[in-house]
């Protein structure tokens, strides 16, 4: 692990901060009394947990965009698919506590007058099966999509646009009630996870810590990829795909491996996000969401990994803040930020900090 972080000062700082947060925030929440100025409310814990899930997602985008030059405008789809897999597990945990009290069918299926659970819902009552699906479904989609696209050498703008088409098609599909994923309401009203109530402070802390651990592991695994030979070839592909191909590398295989891995990370991020916010709906598939998360990476600074995390935190925190204080300025601020960063900060905030240091 230390070898991995050698020379990665940003990463060292980031992981230290993350470890501190994962240890201190539970203490501040559970042990300190509410009157204490250092007390962290459960609301804040959940909010931070959500940001951690977003940061993991940003990491997955940085891996393919920063290091391989694939601007995916459909990473939200992998995130949402992971989220849906988690949502399906949580949905089946509700049991007969739903509005209709049906022990076998989730509420929306009872509402649609379905008699039995569709085949693709089988197995999702088992947590570990659901966890496998969280990784497998986005991974498989990315594998099939990537295998087609990379073999045909669809690159650049065209690739961006068909990834956008992919998430848009999924958005439309998940809006349909017939799909069996709750239509435009999505999946919600979750009660508990692994037998622990989702409303309790302890569960929320546990989810927060789990997100922090996932983010740390995600960071380390991405870091191990980008520092490996594979990662260096990926960077070479980004800079001159044809040359790498002429030298004799199977460019499509390398791209496919990293793209699929990135989709799996995005799926895991989705699975961590859903129990903390308590809902997953087709809105997560909307192309705008996917573009937004590319912006997190751009603002933080790509090709650094920790920059993506930083960007996710900054943009999401300002979104939470501004939509609370002055909702109508949020889009102005976000829009201006996009324009400003792409024009003046091609390496994002991290690039700015590095320049200051030098």
């Amino acid at each position, binding site marked *: 692990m230390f070898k991995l972080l050698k020379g990665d000062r940003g990463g060292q700082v980031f992981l230290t901060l993350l470890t501190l947060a994962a240890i201190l925030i539970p203490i501040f929440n559970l042990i300190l009394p509410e009157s204490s100025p250092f007390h962290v409310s459960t609301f804040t814990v959940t909010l931070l947990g959500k940001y951690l899930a977003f940061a993991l997602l940003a990491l997955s985008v940085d891996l393919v965009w920063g290091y391989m030059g694939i*601007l995916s405008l459909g990473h939200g789809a992998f995130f949402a698919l992971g989220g849906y897999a988690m949502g399906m597990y949580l949905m089946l945990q509700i049991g007969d506590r739903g509005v209709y009290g049906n022990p076998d069918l989730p509420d929306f299926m009872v509402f649609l007058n379905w008699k039995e659970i569709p085949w693709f819902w089988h197995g999702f009552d088992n947590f570990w099966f659901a966890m496998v699906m969280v990784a497998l479904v986005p991974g498989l989609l990315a594998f099939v*999509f990537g295998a*087609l*696209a990379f*073999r*045909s*050498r*669809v*690159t*650049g*703008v*065209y690739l*961006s*646009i*068909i990834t*956008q*088409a*992919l998430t*848009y*098609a999924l958005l*439309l*599909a998940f*809006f*349909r009630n017939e799909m069996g994923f709750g239509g435009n309401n999505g999946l919600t009203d979750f009660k508990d996870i692994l037998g622990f109530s989702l409303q309790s402070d302890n569960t929320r802390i546990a989810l927060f810590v789990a997100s922090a651990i996932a983010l740390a592991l995600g960071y380390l695994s991405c870091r191990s990829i980008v520092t490996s030979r594979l990662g260096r070839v990926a960077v070479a592909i980004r800079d001159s795909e044809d040359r790498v191909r002429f030298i004799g590398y199977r460019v499509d295989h390398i791209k496919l491996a990293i793209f699929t891995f990135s989709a799996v990370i995005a799926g895991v991020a989705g699975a961590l996000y859903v129990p903390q916010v308590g809902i997953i709906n087709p809105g997560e598939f909307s*192309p*705008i969401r996917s*573009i937004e998360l*590319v*912006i997190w990476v*751009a603002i933080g600074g790509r090709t650094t990994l920790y920059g993506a995390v930083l960007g996710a935190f900054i943009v999401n925190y300002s979104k939470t803040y501004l939509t609370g204080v002055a909702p*109508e300025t*949020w*889009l*102005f601020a*976000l*829009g*201006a*930020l*996009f*324009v400003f*960063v*792409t*024009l003046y900060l*091609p390496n994002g905030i991290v690039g700015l900090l590095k320049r200051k240091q030098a």
Partner: protein
Amino acid sequence: MSFFSLKNKITLVLIFSLSLLFTSSSFAESTNLQHKNSEPFIQALELLQSKSYNKKGKAIEQLVATKDERVQSILEAMLKARLFYTKEDKTVVIGKKVDDGFALTSVLEQKYLGSLSKSKLKKVKVNNKLRGILRASIATLSLSSPDAKKRLAAVKQMFGKTNKAGITALQAHLKMEKDSAVRSEIETLININDLDSGDKETQLAAIKTLFNSLNPETRNKLEILKDNADADIASASQVALKNINNKLGFYDKVNTAFFGLSLGSVLVLAAIGLAITFGVMGVINMAHGELIMLGAYTTYVIQQIMPNHIGLALVLAVPAAFIVSGSVGILIERLVIRHLYGRPLETLLATFGISLILQQAVRSVFSPLNRAVETPVWMAGSLEINPALSLTYNRLYIIFFCLAVFTILYLIIKKTSLGLSVQAVSQNRSMARAMGIRASRVDALTFGLGSGIAGVAGVALSQLTNVGPNLGQAYIIDSFMVVVFGGVGNLWGTLISGFTLGIANKFMEPWAGAVLAKILVLVFIILFIQKRPRGLFPQKGRAAES
């Protein structure tokens, strides 16, 4: 009782005539006496209130004989059991059902009288015999209109509702009718009626003449006749029915193709500006949808400025939207995109930021709610080609408008010096500069042109969808699909791709549903790009390399 009713009648007549005097004089003052309340007309109205159905029948005859233009609406209301008289002053009124009774319009002055509860009204009752008389009278009345269009409409209304008296009236009218459309319609109607006649010869003759009739009524009748006990009639109607069904199927396909063409036109309109900015300049303009939206809002604003000339406002909106969106486009190019040439993915992000700003700006200025853009009269209605096929004017106009915009744009690119410079710069920038073309000026103008066309598309879209801050978002992805599918940098490709996708979408809709059809189209495009990564009509030569 007799005494009572007599007294009642006297007061009734008194009140009636008084009110009549009052109303007719006031009417004369206000509107220069549009309706002459002739004596027989008033008498007939009185007679309608009688209990005897025979007297009511006579009243109807009298009314028809007056040739007053109000008669038709009275008879129609009577047929629908919507003709009343008030218990209080015996005014004859036409009622329209509202929550707590009936909203009333007086028959004499054609004036709205407010609403009354049901208990204060008395219905002019009709029996089956009267209904027959009413139908026939209404038919004859409509047929006597001097306007051929009205006569045609009258005949069309009679399909499926005729009785013997109506047919006789029609046969009489046919002798005097000169308009060919009305004549053929009446003949069809009479023939359809003959199908029921029960006389074998007449029926067979009718089937023969109706062999090509597309009227839905013909089909209904033949459906019944094909199981007729008489083998000749049954087989003849089966053959005729098959022919008619084939034709209907064909026209149904034509109709779907028409819908597809109009959807395709919308797609082409939305995408053609992008074909310039993305295709020719290589700029991924995510704010393209918002430039369309600005065009739609320009239409709204111009309609607000001149609310009495909706049609003219729409026509004026076309150049205005071009200027508004075009200047915003030039502004975007000068301030942002200029710094990002050669980095297409970065322009994507920056223009996405601009799109958010424009959306929020519109939301702040106009409100987040949808604005109502009105449709001028000449865009409403439809062009009826035959009973199975009618093309709505707004769709027709969209198709023509799309083709016109395409032609103009094509001519600009191919025939003007600006177009020549645009092509030169897009093919080889540095060589074009070496030849003395001011590349940066051309860039700005090209981007302005593409954006202006987006604005013009917005004018057209304002007639089809809701005008709101999210209008642009709905079209941006479709636009990109059209351009990429058609082949970047190729105007013809965009045109063909837009129409193909539109028609494919509409042909899939009947069996797949609207949403699934769209998903299938998207999946198809994703797969198509694998096979031909540069679209239907890829650019050739050196410009294609980058």
